[in-house]
């Protein structure tokens, strides 16, 4: 009985210490684990300017343009407070569209334009059939992701 | 025929959708088969031990199997 009790306390204490250590370690690594920076991070200078970084946000409505060379796309990435102009040469993922989340990897080029080497589309957590989405838009109940940032 | 082709194409995502389902089937069925295989092998070994002839030693130790 007492041996079992002692083993129980031992395991509980070990788990507690382990959990605390993990929480501390992850807290210290916070900025390393963060996969991308927001346009506001860039504007406030809390993102490293020299090296290559990932910039994440929403593709601003009406900002996507394809340049005459046929392979370069320009758009603005916004977090609804700040926005950054981005240019990218290459194929875009299927989920890339205006108003949707996007993560670009690259660095700030001349004139403040973020030159992306890679563009990844971020999917939000909503799943619905097309007809339902259309019906919601029609009835005015549609929650545009650019209006309600999480 | 056309319907079948549309279905298999999965709106252009067929090359991603079908491998995902195929892989799931392979893993689930594979795990079941290896599990049943080991169970039957152990059942054979145990029943051989129950056999009255004492010469029948177990053919192999179970822990030798991965």
């Amino acid at each position, binding site marked *: 009985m007492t041996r079992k009790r002692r*083993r*129980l306390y031992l*395991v509980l204490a070990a*788990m507690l210490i*382990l*959990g605390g250590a*993990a929480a501390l370690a992850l807290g210290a690594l*916070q900025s390393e684990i*963060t*996969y*991308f920076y*927001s346009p506001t991070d860039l504007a406030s200078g809390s993102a490293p300017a020299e090296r290559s970084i990932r910039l*994440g946000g929403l593709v601003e409505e009406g900002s996507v343009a394809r340049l005459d060379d046929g392979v370069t796309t320009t758009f603005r990435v916004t977090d609804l407070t700040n926005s950054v102009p981005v240019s990218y040469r290459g*194929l*875009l*993922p*299927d*989920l890339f569209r205006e108003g*949707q989340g996007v*993560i670009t990897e690259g660095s700030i080029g001349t004139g403040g334009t973020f030159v992306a080497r*890679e*563009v*990844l*589309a971020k*999917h*939000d*957590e*909503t*799943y*619905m*059939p*097309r007809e*339902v*989405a259309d019906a919601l838009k029609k009835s005015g109940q549609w929650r545009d992701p650019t209006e309600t940032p999480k | 025929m056309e319907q079948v082709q549309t279905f298999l194409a999965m*709106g252009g*995502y*067929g090359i*991603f*959708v079908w*491998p*995902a*389902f195929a*892989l*799931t089937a392979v*893993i689930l069925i*594979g*795990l*079941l088969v290896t*599990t049943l295989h*080991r*169970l039957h092998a*152990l*059942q054979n070994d*145990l029943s051989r*031990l129950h056999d009255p002839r004492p010469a029948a*030693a*177990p053919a192999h*130790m*179970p*822990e030798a199997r991965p």
Partner: protein
Amino acid sequence: MNMHRFANPGRFVRLAERILPWSGALAVLALAAGLYLSLFVSPADYQQGDSVRIMYVHVPAAWMALFVYTVIAAASASALIWRHPLADLVARASAPVGAGFTFLALATGSLWGKPMWGTWWVWDARLTSVLVLFFLYLGHMALSNAFDDQSRGNRAAAVLALVGFVNVPIIKFSVDWWSTLHQPASVMRLDGPTIHPSMLWPLLVMAVGFKLYYVSIMLLRVKSEVMAARLRARSMAAVEAT
């Protein structure tokens, strides 16, 4: 090695034999229904098109990866603390199944990520922590068979399982704590699912199928473990008698 240690597992095997026909039949039924619902009945998503169907195997596999690990951790705790004779066997029986589910979650996620995100893999917090989970499973399997004396192997694997359990909440909340490429939870969230019912149902049926599949396989494997232990005890007794 006295026989009363196997009295309890013996009762478990008889119980397992009563449950197995039901859990097996229901698993086949639920998986067949889930397959039909996800391939034929579910509509295409308004954003992802038909690639959303990958979600019907990806999400249940990922849920099971976490669930099976939780079972292993709970079994390991009861093996270490109370020396429950079945607990080690449940952990041993579950690890390869959990590893299979984790591999499936990673592989099917990759197959969805390529067309949707534009990449097979990223090192974000969610994907990385699930990869760590996969290695924990492999480590558990290796450790539990690493010693000639199986109980030593089980002990080592149980410690690993408990240490690795910190990873489970990290996986679950990684998408909320850090900015990740992976999307946040859609079903298990406080404000209700953000999946339309026509897509939630196929997912839930499939998830039930996966869970019943695990229960059935786990029972079969625990039965094997009990038999292997009996065989070891017999052959050891035979060696001592000669």
